[in-house]
């Protein structure tokens, strides 16, 4: 968002204080009045439909004021796939205030409120969450998020699409604690090399990290089928029929694609978010949250295990209107309540104000979500090819301090410099060996050295981009698979990395990562909302930051020794 020129004329004298306030970064952010007729409204609009449902002969024939002959394709898909026909009339008869209280009250179990949710229509769900303030929404997220243990996701990208940089930053991100890593490209044809960098670097940092490369659907699936990536996320869905069609998809094409991924044993989640429809110019006069709830139910109906939501790349839109960030928290709540894995946003540059960036983050970080960021920029924002993130590498220490201050697990930890340098160096050397064996343009010792100590893409020697692109093409033409990379790593002295990578590939045989909110521990134990189901039931229950993990999070870059105030704890 760009700010417009301030209104004050030159002739009007302003106070010194006003001058200071005018200069504050928050005043570079964009704010706009609501315009409900066009859908430029977060979650409270007179133009949203009233909740209703009617079942005839085992089929929903009326949904939120429309009869079946008036249904658009979202209504049809939601009515036929998402909503539980047997329970919907009873569920809809439950007063909204009762349901909102169930979401907050720890004495109502997650299972009960999830079961009730299966019978609700989009307008009813909106009616419920409209009753909740932001603290109540966080209470709801704490109870309804599907996995017990929170986690986090990082971006590892490069403004120069430098695969060595992506590998080194992936290794650092993995050792810092991220469970998933995502990359994308400036020049799409670089994808195979960058995706290899992400995968190999990730497995150097911490075995079992899952990686993905955001591309158009067909290429993304291709890289997944070859075993170069482990999961997919950028499968976009929209809340109005017109925008969905503009995106060249339908709920049926996306449901088919969801099954295609699962049929290859590849984890996948959809992506949606408030503001996308109004940004794409056809919100059909509905509020952002109402349309997002339709997306959430469409995803549930398709049987995909999870959803990335929380406005995502459209955060400037809800961020500009009153109550917008409350609506973003509410969409994360609804995704969790609908029993989907929720990768909860905090992933796009949002504000010029550090204070506002932090406040936008707390509704996900404090209650914990399946992935607090989706993702956190594991590179400086100027190298972030997803147009920047709400958090980047400069914020690592702040994040760790906030975790320690609040005794909250945001998925990261402080890591000693020597460990970070070691994994960055090893990731770069592993890439050097792979490139040599694959006859790709050589990675020099100078580049390995640069990767070890670098911050951004500026700190690396430039590569011959044309030669790299030729190499990337040959990787695809030769049909290089993940298994080929495993073999090379094994024979070039990176046996532990090869073993980690092979262990990730083995997961697709078991299909364990297809279950809701599945991630892998460092010991390759799949952790999903089955064997690690959220059991929050009020104070003293659920995930508590304690024991070894809490000891780990007490460590920071600088902590003074209690015994000797002249020393720092290492």
């Amino acid at each position, binding site marked *: 968002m760009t700010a417009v020129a301030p209104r004050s004329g030159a002739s009007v004298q302003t106070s010194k204080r006003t001058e200071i306030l005018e200069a504050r970064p928050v005043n570079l952010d964009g704010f706009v009045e609501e315009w409900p007729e066009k859908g430029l409204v977060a979650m409270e609009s007179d133009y949203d439909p009233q909740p209703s449902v009617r079942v005839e002969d085992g089929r929903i024939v009326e949904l939120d004021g429309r009869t079946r002959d008036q249904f658009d394709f979202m209504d049809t898909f939601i009515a036929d796939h998402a909503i*539980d026909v047997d329970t919907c009339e009873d569920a809809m008869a439950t007063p909204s205030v009762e349901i909102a209280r169930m979401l907050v009250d720890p004495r109502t179990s997650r299972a009960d409120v999830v079961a009730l949710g299966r019978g609700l229509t989009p307008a009813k769900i909106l009616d419920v969450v409209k009753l909740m303030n932001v603290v109540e929404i966080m209470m709801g997220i704490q109870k309804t998020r599907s996995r017990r243990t929170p986690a986090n996701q990082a971006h590892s990208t490069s403004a120069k699409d430098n695969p060595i940089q992506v590998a080194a930053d992936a290794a650092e991100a993995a050792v810092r604690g991220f469970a998933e890593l995502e990359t994308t490209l400036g020049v799409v044809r670089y994808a195979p090399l960058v995706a290899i960098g992400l995968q190999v670097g990730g497995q150097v940092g911490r075995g079992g990290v899952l990686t993905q490369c955001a591309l158009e*659907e067909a290429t993304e699936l291709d890289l997944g089928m070859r075993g170069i990536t482990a999961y997919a996320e950028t499968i976009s869905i929209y809340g109005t029929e017109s925008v969905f069609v503009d995106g060249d998809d339908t709920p049926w094409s996306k*449901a088919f694609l969801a099954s295609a991924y699962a049929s290859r044993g590849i984890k996948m989640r959809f992506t949606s978010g408030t503001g996308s429809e109004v940004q794409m110019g056809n919100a059909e006069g509905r509020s952002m949250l109402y349309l997002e709830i339709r997306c959430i139910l469409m995803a549930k109906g398709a049987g995909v295990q999870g959803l990335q939501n929380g406005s995502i790349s459209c955060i400037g839109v809800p961020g500009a209107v009153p109550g917008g960030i409350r609506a973003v928290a509410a969409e994360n709540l609804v995704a969790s309540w609908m029993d989907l894995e929720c990768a909860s946003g905090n992933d796009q540059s949002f504000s010029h104000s550090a204070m506002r960036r932090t406040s936008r983050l707390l509704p996900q970080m404090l209650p914990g979500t399946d992935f607090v960021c989706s993702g956190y920029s594991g590179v400086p924002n100027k190298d972030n090819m997803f147009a920047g993130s709400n958090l980047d590498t400069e914020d690592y220490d702040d994040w760790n301090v906030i975790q320690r201050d609040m005794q909250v697990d945001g998925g990261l930890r402080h890591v000693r410099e020597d460990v970070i340098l070691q994994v960055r160096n090893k990731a770069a050397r592993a890439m050097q060996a792979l490139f040599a064996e694959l006859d790709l343009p050589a990675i020099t010792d100078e580049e390995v050295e640069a990767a070890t100590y670098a911050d951004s893409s500026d700190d690396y020697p430039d590569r011959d981009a044309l030669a790299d692109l030729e190499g990337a093409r040959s990787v695809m033409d030769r049909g290089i698979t993940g298994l080929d990379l495993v073999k090379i790593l094994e024979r070039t002295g990176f046996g532990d990395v090869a073993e980690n990578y*092979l262990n990730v*590939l083995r997961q697709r*045989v078991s*299909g364990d990562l297809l279950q*809701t909110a599945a991630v892998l521990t460092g010991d390759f134990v799949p952790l999903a909302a089955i064997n690690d189901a959220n059991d929050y039931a009020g104070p003293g229950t659920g995930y508590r930051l304690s024991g070894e993990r809490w000891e780990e999070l007490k460590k920071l870059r600088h902590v003074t020794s209690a015994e000797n105030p002249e020393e720092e704890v290492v």
Partner: protein
Amino acid sequence: MTSTELTPADYPLSINRPELLHTPTGKALADITMDAVVSGEVTNEDLRVTPDTLVLQGRIAESVGRRQLGENCRRAAEMTAIPDDEVLAMYNALRPRASSAAQLEEIASRLENTFSAPTCAGLVREAAEVYAARNLLAEED
């Protein structure tokens, strides 16, 4: 195999029920070792999920109340038989105004008859019906 009773306690199958798992070429999960990879005994073809495994995962999903995820696993089990290129071609054919009613019916028949994929065929037929009502079919040739 198809009658195996599963509960949430069986998850993760790779750890709790590895005896139920096999690769498309009939190897056990424990056979996927680095030695076997290096010797070429294990190939990329082994690193795929089987329809049986997808059915098992679908059953686990249903045992914890995730009906739609279970259905997705069933569709996926059917799709394991379809070659990669054709899966992508079918996906593209389901995009708005990409196919006529007859073309979608052809895909549905192929799913049903060639690939024994009745659940997937049902999804395509359902799409054809909705696309007809919403003006999302391609013009007939």
